[in-house]
């Protein structure tokens, strides 16, 4: 193929092959950005058994070198995207607007093309959630974007969050019953207040034990007790406020305290207008995931997202994670979102945290992923230049110690000795 030099072909074959053992790698990089605040120049990251076994300067540990050596400009931890949209209408059971116990893991397809697309942009861990057509859609799962060809084998944390939505997504497409109700869309809420009422009803029913036989009760109990974080989509200011006020209601109303269910933990997803309410989010200690930065201000639901949103929130002490919503486009992928956040005022370290350690923390998997530290999963991204600059790209992605994406060419990006 004439364009071979600039064609990046994936290393995976279509017919499933024997799973490669977690390889041992020595990665020599000009820059190692560990994400712990300690960055190193001209250093080595050693990978063994699927985990990072050492991070050291060149001179030491020469004797521990493995046979396979990768040389690249920069290494960071694998990116974590807590807001990908990799599911479609088959992931949400719309016959009932509140379905807390349904698991999105049951609907995921390990053969879907989305995973490879995410891999090519350096994303190694994602939160997959049901489509936001239900008020409460079900249980999201944290999984790696590569690995053995089953969802179970890639799962980092099953039933990790309870996913729901405010705003117009759960009410879009519903209609009042004209004459005779013709389908269940006539029973579902058609307005924002209807959506919010469903949330409160679910919570109050749980606290007052009105939903004893409901299969979703146990999940709601765990969520209200704070054992299961609640990820709630809210694009506009009014929806963000509604979500925060709902949480404060649960925290303060005696019905919930009496039942011991007054400690819910909220994370707001796609909080485009969070820049308008930083104090509100700070005082309620609500974490936030931002949607992709829109080029000229307006994004979905006509929400206006300022480019300094991440900085404004960070300055108020709000935990901010960035998201690409699963896009692999050069101008929208997660790595370049971090660049945009820097254009909006974040430092490199802060932008790095916003796409690695902070989303890992929000998902509760920070002990395994999010930084380059000895003992953590060997999820690494190899860069041809300074990460997050559009002038650099992802040339390799390692997941659990296995090189899952090789994007370098014979003349550019990285070199490897096997």
């Amino acid at each position: 193929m004439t364009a071979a030099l600039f064609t990046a072909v994936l290393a995976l074959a279509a017919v499933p092959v024997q799973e490669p053992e977690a390889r041992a790698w020595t990665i020599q990089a000009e820059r190692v950005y560990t994400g712990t605040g300690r960055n190193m120049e001209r250093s080595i990251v050693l990978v063994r058994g699927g985990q990072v076994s050492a991070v050291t300067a060149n001179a030491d540990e020469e004797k521990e070198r493995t046979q396979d050596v990768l040389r690249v400009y920069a290494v960071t931890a694998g990116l974590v995207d807590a807001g990908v949209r990799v599911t479609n209408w088959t992931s949400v059971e719309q016959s009932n607007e509140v379905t807390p116990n349904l698991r999105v893991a049951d609907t995921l397809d390990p053969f879907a093309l989305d995973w490879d697309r995410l891999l090519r942009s350096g994303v190694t861990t994602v939160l997959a959630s049901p489509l936001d057509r239900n008020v409460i859609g079900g249980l999201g799962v944290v999984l790696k974007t590569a690995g053995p060809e089953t969802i179970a084998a890639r799962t980092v944390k099953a039933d990790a969050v309870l996913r729901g939505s405010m705003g117009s997504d759960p009410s879009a497409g519903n209609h009042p019953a004209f004459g005779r109700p013709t389908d269940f869309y006539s029973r579902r809420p058609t307005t924002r207040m209807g959506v919010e009422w469903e949330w409160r009803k679910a919570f109050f029913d749980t606290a007052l034990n009105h939903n004893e036989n409901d299969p979703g009760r146990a999940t709601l109990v765990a969520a209200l007790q704070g054992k299961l974080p609640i990820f709630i989509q809210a694009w506009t200011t009014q929806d963000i406020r509604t979500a925060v006020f709902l949480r404060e209601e649960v925290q303060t109303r005696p019905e919930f305290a009496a039942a011991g269910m007054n400690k819910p933990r909220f994370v707001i997803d796609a909080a485009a207008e969070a820049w308008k309410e930083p104090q509100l989010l700070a005082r309620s200690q609500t974490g936030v995931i931002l949607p992709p930065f829109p080029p000229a201000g307006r994004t979905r639901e006509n929400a206006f997202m300022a480019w300094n949103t991440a900085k404004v929130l960070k300055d108020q002490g709000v935990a901010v994670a960035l998201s690409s919503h699963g896009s692999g486009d050069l101008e929208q992928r997660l790595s370049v979102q971090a660049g945009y956040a820097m254009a909006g005022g974040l430092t490199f370290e802060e932008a790095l945290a916003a796409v690695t350690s902070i989303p890992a923390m929000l998902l509760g998997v920070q002990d395994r992923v999010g930084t380059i530290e000895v003992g953590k999963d060997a999820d690494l991204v190899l860069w041809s230049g300074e990460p997050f600059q559009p002038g650099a790209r992802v040339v390799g992605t390692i997941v659990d110690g296995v090189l899952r994406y090789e994007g370098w060419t014979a003349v550019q990006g990285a070199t490897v000795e096997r």
Partner: protein
Amino acid sequence: MLSILLALAAAPALQNDGPLAIRAKAVWTGGGKVLENAVVVVDNGRIQAVGVDVAIPDGAELVEHDGVLTAGLIALHGATGAVGETRDGTRPALPEGRVGLAVDLRHLDFVALREAGITCILVTPDAAGITGGTTAVVKTAGGTVLRDPAHLSLVFSNEGLSGNTPPTSTSGALALLQNLFAEPRGIVAEARAGKLPCLFEVREREDVRRAIAFAKDKKLNGALHGAALAGEVAGDIKAAGLSVIVPALAIGTPKRTLDAVIRLQKEEIPLGFGLDTPWNHAEALRLSAVMCVRAGLDRQAAWEALTAGAARIAGIEARVGRIERGLDADLVMWSGDPLDVGSVARRVLIGGRSVAAQEEVR
């Protein structure tokens, strides 16, 4: 006196109700065995004798066939005779629905099946909701229902989902399936007890995995239908002990799909071919097998999948699928090698009666 009836005659069904003897240049009895210049004796709708030195009984009509004689083909998965009756959209679970009751056994569509050498067909409900009911095996002539119910159909593909009625999601469908099997009654209880095999309707490889997981959990057996690339997860299917019904393959089927079928056979997973009538023509059944053979499938395995193997999947191996004494006289006289697309079915017998005949063109 032996009346020699030329196989070339354009006569309709053999009128003689007495014993019939067919001497064919090659007789495929099943299991890979081919008998040259053998005789098959048929009486009272059954095969009485098969062999090279078989004695022809007195009064029997002798038919000389200058071609190949085989058991009738068995198509798995179709809606012949029940078009429009295979989907009830009023509820997601209708396990007691019996499509066998809806088949019009005199429907004209059966003629095409007979002429293609197909003597049995598994009629199946649509993949709608979580179960559309049970399947039934019918003969393509004579009004015989061989087995009803034959399987309980369970849906694991997105085809079962709808935008308007529950379930609208894969997880919702799984929840409904769990409920259905939580306190099983009637047909579901039979399936749960392993007495009734299931037909798992799938499409993607991940659907196959979900179906297998469910089957393991509820200790169900049966066959998977609908996934063109099922062979790429053949290891999982083998471990679960399920069979696979390969969907009808047209000309132009991608190599990847054909390779997947071959992988199934290499893992020794029982195979059959589906036909999805009336959307596919009856000849597509044999063509599916030919496409696989061209791509490298073992000939004998392909033939098994059209006959004895299919009979096992349909649960009718005690009646049809091989040329063996005691089995029904469902036979096809081919003009040549049936795995050659140029061959046609000269004459087809079901229960010993001729139900289709085709003149040779000079």
